[in-house]
């Protein structure tokens, strides 16, 4: 039959309450009034329980509970108090006749609960039960007739207040009904509370995860930017985004370096700078209200700046001033730590950017000095018939204190190698002075090496710091005869490698130059025959160290010279240099290195 088919097959079964209602309803009319009442209450309770199996919010549970309670008790009104978070219970809902006092009710949850689940005005309460007292007071205050106590274990989770019965309806006082209603509702409300707590926890965790991700995002961003303005902008964006503030400024070095938000914040910046000063010495983010300068607090409040976050990284010091957090959010200690961390990272990024810029400037200056210095060194070795000459200079920094030069004068070639103590710019400047002076000394006819040494010593002693000195070998070569006059002023002894492979060292001379006001001098002489070779070098070569800190030393230098002696002078220089570099390995060269090789060609004598 089509009528039979109209019953929905597979539809959800009716809830038990409906089934009970269907079952009992036809018989209620025939029951005596007391049984009638009991059945009605029973049906209301099953109905209520069944409804609670559906997912509900606290408000929905409260609302349903009030309606059921009101319906069955015939009271004029019913109201629910629920925990408000600070160990008090406050109105959460009400049905029935309004009472103005209701809204301002606040009930501090007592430690002890009365044994009864329902208390009623005028009922003969046991006088020895002090736990009753607060509840009875509440009944009086609220103008209620009864209170059902909702508990979870030993805790008070809510109060159902029921007003006096409706005058035109029969008086019904069913405490056991209220008690049952309270028990059922209490379980449902507790479940709602836990669900909401879980949701709030999830929300908080989500927020923390998001904030952490944002902190990483900003930290990575700060690493990338090199421009100070961009760093401060990023700090403001990050901080304002975190607390949802609509204004903020950054003060550093006594001025406002970045600002976001309404233009009303411009005008006089002095309060912001003053706030920065007030923040000095503090490490944590703190509220403006925590400042004691009353004028300043007023100025900042006028700009709606609520928070000061000091930062410092090296010379970069200042404060982030932040507007009040949006949505009336309170800044928790984790928020303040977040802001302090963010500001600290920004300050470090700015410091890095400044150091980076300073390094680039310094490198530019050094490169320039290097260019100037390289012009002071000989561009090409002199070409003399019968001689093969080469020199090499490797500064270990961009500029160095080693020096070598050839000055032709008459039929002589003045050869100089020198090493000013120290490395870097100071020695390099001194080297320039030595080069200019020595060239002038030779060119103005002072060709005696001992006089030249004395003059140089005097110049260095007078013009430089007391601890600054120079070692040098001054040489004067007659290319035609091979005679070399020399003066070794405390320098590594040059090596003469004879054609027969015997070795002589050149040691005659003086102490180092520039350290003492006067020096004793001695000019030595050596004759270089065809096939002989002279090598002069600085200690950068002999003191090149291998990874175990052993020096390259004279012994290895002579060995290497011997091995390369048949090659031309330039190649010999190259061989020694690469030999020293290979020896030093990953340590690289620690000092300036200079080497001059003068070979008297063997063919000349034949």
């Amino acid at each position, binding site marked *: 039959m089509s009528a039979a088919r109209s019953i929905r097959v597979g539809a959800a079964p009716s809830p038990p309450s409906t089934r009970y209602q269907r079952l009992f309803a036809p018989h209620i009319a025939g029951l005596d009034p007391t049984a009638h009442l009991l059945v009605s209450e029973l049906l209301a309770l099953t109905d209520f329980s069944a409804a609670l199996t559906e997912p509900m919010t606290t408000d929905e549970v409260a609302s349903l509970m009030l309606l059921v309670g009101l319906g069955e008790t015939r009271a004029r009104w019913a109201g629910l108090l629920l925990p408000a978070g600070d160990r008090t219970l406050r109105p959460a809902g009400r049905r029935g006749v309004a009472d103005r006092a209701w809204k301002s009710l606040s009930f501090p949850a007592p430690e002890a609960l009365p044994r009864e689940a329902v208390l009623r005005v005028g009922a003969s309460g046991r006088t020895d039960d002090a736990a009753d007292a607060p509840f009875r007071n509440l009944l009086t205050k609220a103008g209620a007739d009864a209170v059902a106590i909702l508990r979870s274990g030993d805790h008070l989770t809510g109060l159902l207040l029921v007003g006096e019965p409706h005058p035109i309806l029969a008086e019904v006082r069913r405490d056991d009904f209220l008690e049952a209603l309270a028990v059922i509702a209490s379980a449902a409300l507790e479940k709602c509370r836990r669900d909401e707590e879980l949701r709030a926890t999830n929300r908080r965790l989500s927020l923390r995860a998001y904030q952490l991700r944002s902190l990483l995002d900003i930290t990575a*961003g700060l690493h990338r930017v090199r421009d100070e303005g961009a760093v401060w902008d990023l700090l403001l964006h990050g901080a304002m985004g975190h607390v949802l503030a609509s204004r903020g400024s950054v003060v550093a070095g006594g001025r406002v370096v970045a600002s976001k938000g309404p233009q009303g914040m411009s005008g006089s910046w002095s309060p912001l700078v003053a706030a920065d000063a007030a923040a000095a010495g503090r490490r944590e983010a703190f509220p403006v209200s925590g400042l004691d300068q009353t004028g300043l607090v007023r100025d900042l409040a006028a700009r709606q700046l609520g928070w000061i976050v000091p930062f410092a990284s090296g010379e970069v010091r200042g404060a982030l001033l932040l507007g009040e957090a949006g949505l009336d959010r309170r800044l928790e200690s984790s928020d303040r730590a977040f802001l302090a961390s963010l500001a600290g990272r920004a300050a470090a990024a700015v410091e890095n950017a400044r150091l980076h810029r300073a390094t680039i400037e310094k490198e530019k200056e050094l490169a320039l000095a290097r260019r100037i210095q390289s012009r002071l060194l000989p561009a090409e070795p002199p070409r003399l018939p019968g001689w093969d000459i080469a020199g090499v200079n490797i500064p270990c920094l961009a500029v160095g204190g080693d020096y070598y030069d050839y000055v032709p004068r008459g039929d002589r070639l003045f050869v100089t190698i020198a090493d000013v103590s120290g490395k870097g710019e100071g020695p390099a400047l001194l080297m320039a002075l030595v080069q200019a002076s020595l060239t002038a000394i030779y060119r103005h006819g002072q060709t005696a090496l001992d006089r030249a040494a004395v003059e140089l010593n005097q110049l260095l002693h007078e013009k430089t710091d007391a601890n600054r000195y120079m070692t040098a070998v001054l040489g004067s070569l007659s290319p035609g005869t091979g005679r070399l006059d020399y003066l070794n002023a405390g320098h590594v002894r040059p090596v003469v490698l004879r054609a027969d492979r015997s070795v002589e060292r050149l040691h005659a001379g003086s102490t180092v130059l520039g350290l003492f006001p006067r020096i004793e001098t001695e000019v030595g002489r050596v004759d270089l025959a065809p096939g002989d070779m002279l090598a002069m070098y600085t200690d950068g070569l002999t003191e090149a160290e291998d990874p175990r800190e052993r020096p390259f030393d004279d012994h290895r230098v002579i060995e290497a010279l011997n091995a390369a002696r048949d090659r031309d002078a330039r190649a010999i220089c190259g061989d020694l240099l690469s030999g020293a570099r290979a020896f030093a390995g990953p340590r690289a060269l620690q000092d300036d290195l200079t080497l001059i090789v003068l070979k008297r060609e063997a063919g000349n004598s034949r």
Partner: protein
Amino acid sequence: MPELEITIRSVGSVAVVEPRGFVNAHTVSGFERALSERVDAGNVRIVISGAHLSYVASAGFGAIMGLIEDVRGRGGDIRICALSGPVAHIFRVLGFDRLCRTFEREEDAVESFRGS
């Protein structure tokens, strides 16, 4: 593909700003510039469409916050539309949807400026 691409459309008197990709520390300056250029040009009715937004880091919210008072002070507003997925979740978690009016459809966001 760049991390963030921003297209700007005019729908009547409303500027629809549509960021595509990621608003983060790397891209936030461009995002802020796109918005502040609208504001500087006197275009203070702004809808940010999240239709193609993959992510917004807090710096991005900072950029919006930095402009919102100015925009509102000039009779305009910044409204949000077409949020979905993780981005919608972020807006909700932060409570940003309570600071800026949020719409599901762009047409509704644009329409909301009518008569205002």
